[in-house]
């Protein structure tokens, strides 16, 4: 029986409070009117502010066809030149998106950890894995964040859908109105799929499906602990298999809807896999870190260094897998050099140089070199160190997916970003460890594979 320590609870609350304060402070300082933007730009010796007429475009290539401006509020024709007023308006919209995007990224980051952890959990049942049953309660604890996390995401998507914020450019009704001067042929062509009611309906169905599986999986696991035969284990197996089929379709569509549609003109056919690899490596890292934490507190005494070794192997392997997909996406687009595709990477490389290359180092080179050695994968502090860098790296990866689409050049890594990250970290810790403390035991009692897991050695 695990009890939530006062220190951990207190740190979680401190994270949330400090996060909320940082967010509020920075939010108050963000420009609210075009005059504020003008003042900000002149204070920075603004590159834009000096010229009265500035050519619009987040990169040289964005104007190659009718309007790739990823921002709400303006629709640029080829070679469109923005007046100073339009430029200020545009920049203001970017600043208005900044706090929303910061919340969205942090909320999605922890949500995707819980979701991928659920998928990893289902894989353990579906594959009848013998090494992992000792870790199943830890995974169930982490997936406890799925329900609150997905509700928060759904609320954020609804706010976008009701035009409280303008993160999703395609939600602007003027873009699909043929009589409007903002009319965008490409987005109008996609409006059969990309429209607010269908978008929210999809989100609702996906979230419902994932949470239903999580509900039944935990219920079956609890029943199996009390059971005298393997009936409930078999039910867990079936539920896991069905969920995995549902998951791999919905995860892919979720990544198009919730992330890729932020750049509504751009598309990549392996985006679903790319997001999947990123969330999977984060989830396994969190499983390893929570396991190491609980073990250091004297729980999970049957978990040995071979279990940690296996988790670290997964961290290593999924980091490589993530890189493979990241590079596959990058190389094909770089090679073919088609304007509407390549603009995605040009904005990121030119305007987000440090986060873009930094996250390749953090997510690929760092885990590659650190976790390659077999002995290092058994050292807890090594796994935790690598894990922290991997988690931060994938946060930056998500930052790179969202921010260039919503905030464009007006990005910075300020208090709103740190604040929302801290807030959701606190919430995540709070929910995960509260859920763990409610379990009777952190060790499954009657899982048919538990003996194999206890004697697992590499």
């Amino acid at each position: 029986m695990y009890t939530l320590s006062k220190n951990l609870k207190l740190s979680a609350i401190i994270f949330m409070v400090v996060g909320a304060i940082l967010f509020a402070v920075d939010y108050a300082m963000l420009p609210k009117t075009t005059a504020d933007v003008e003042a900000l730009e002149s204070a920075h010796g603004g590159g834009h502010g000096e010229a009265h007429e500035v050519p619009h475009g987040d990169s040289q290539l964005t104007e190659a066809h009718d309007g790739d401006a990823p921002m709400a509020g303006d629709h640029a024709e080829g070679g469109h030149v923005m007046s100073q007023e339009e430029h200020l308006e545009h920049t203001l919209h970017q600043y208005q998106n900044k706090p929303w995007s910061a919340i969205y990224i942090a909320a999605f980051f922890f949500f995707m950890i819980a979701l991928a952890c659920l998928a990893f959990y289902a894989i353990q049942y579906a594959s009848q894995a013998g090494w992992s049953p000792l870790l199943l309660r830890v995974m169930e604890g982490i997936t406890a964040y799925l329900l609150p996390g997905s509700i928060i995401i759904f609320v954020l998507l609804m706010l976008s859908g009701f035009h409280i914020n303008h993160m999703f450019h395609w939600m602007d009704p003027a873009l699909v109105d043929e009589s409007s001067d903002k009319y965008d042929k490409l987005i109008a062509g996609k409006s059969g799929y990309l429209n607010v009611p269908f978008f929210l309906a999809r989100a609702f169905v996906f979230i419902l499906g994932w949470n239903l599986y999580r509900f039944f999986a935990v219920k079956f696991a609890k029943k199996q602990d009390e059971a005298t035969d393997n009936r409930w284990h078999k039910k867990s197996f079936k539920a896991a298999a069905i969920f995995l089929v549902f998951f791999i379709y919905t995860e892919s569509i979720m990544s198009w809807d919730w992330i890729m549609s932020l750049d509504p003109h751009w598309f990549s056919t392996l985006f679903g896999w790319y997001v999947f690899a990123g969330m999977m490596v984060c989830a396994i890292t969190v499983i390893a870190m929570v396991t190491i934490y609980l073990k250091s507190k004297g729980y999970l005494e049957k978990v040995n260094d071979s279990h940690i070794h296996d988790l670290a192997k997964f961290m290593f392997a999924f980091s490589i897998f993530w890189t493979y997909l990241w590079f596959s996406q990058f190389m094909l687009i770089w090679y073919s050099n088609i304007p509407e595709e390549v603009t995605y990477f040009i904005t990121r490389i030119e305007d987000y140089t440090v986060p873009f290359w930094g996250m390749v180092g953090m997510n690929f080179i760092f885990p590659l070199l650190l976790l390659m050695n077999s002995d290092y994968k058994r050292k807890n502090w090594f796994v935790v160190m690598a894990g922290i860098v991997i988690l931060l790296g994938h946060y930056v990866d998500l930052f790179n997916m969202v921010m260039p689409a919503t905030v464009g050049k007006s990005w910075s890594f300020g208090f709103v970003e740190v604040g929302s990250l801290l807030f959701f970290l606190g919430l995540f810790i709070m929910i995960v460890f509260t859920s763990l403390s409610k379990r009777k035991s952190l060790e499954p009692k009657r899982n048919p594979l538990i003996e194999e897991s206890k004697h697992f050695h590499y």
Partner: protein
Amino acid sequence: MASTVIHALYTDDDVLMNAVKEVKKKHLHINEVYTPFPVHGLDKAMGLAPTRIAITSFMYGCLGLTVAIVMMNFIMIEDWPQDIGGKPSFSYIENMPAFVPIMFELTVFFAAHLMVITFYLRSKLWPFKKAENPDVRTTDDHFLMEIDTAGKDAQELADFLVTTGATEINLIANQEA
């Protein structure tokens, strides 16, 4: 020096593992264990030094990566500059994404092949080499532990090995003169 060895045969890998641990507890010297398949943890139980093949593998991988870079630079940039996807920049680094698959493949190729060759050399294996296997049944379903009898009473040793689960025990006079 005429020494003798004992060949103890086992029919199960778990029994063998326990027997190896028992024998090590008595501080007897195990010359070699012959098994039909790799037994997990046997090397640790026998007290063998950890393998260094992973280090050679890493070095071979680095060599492969270097060969790929030098080769592609010569072929595609210096000797006969190629127009890569409309990017005739005469620069390796600017065309690097196109070479990454080759860099990856040659890294794996060098690491894998040279590692296997190293393993053969280190194990003194070469084509047409006569097998050193003392008992052909170890290629099918038997496990054989070879123990040095130097300074020990062979009968006592044999009795002890039977208690560890050996199904057959042979005393072999050493072939080496």
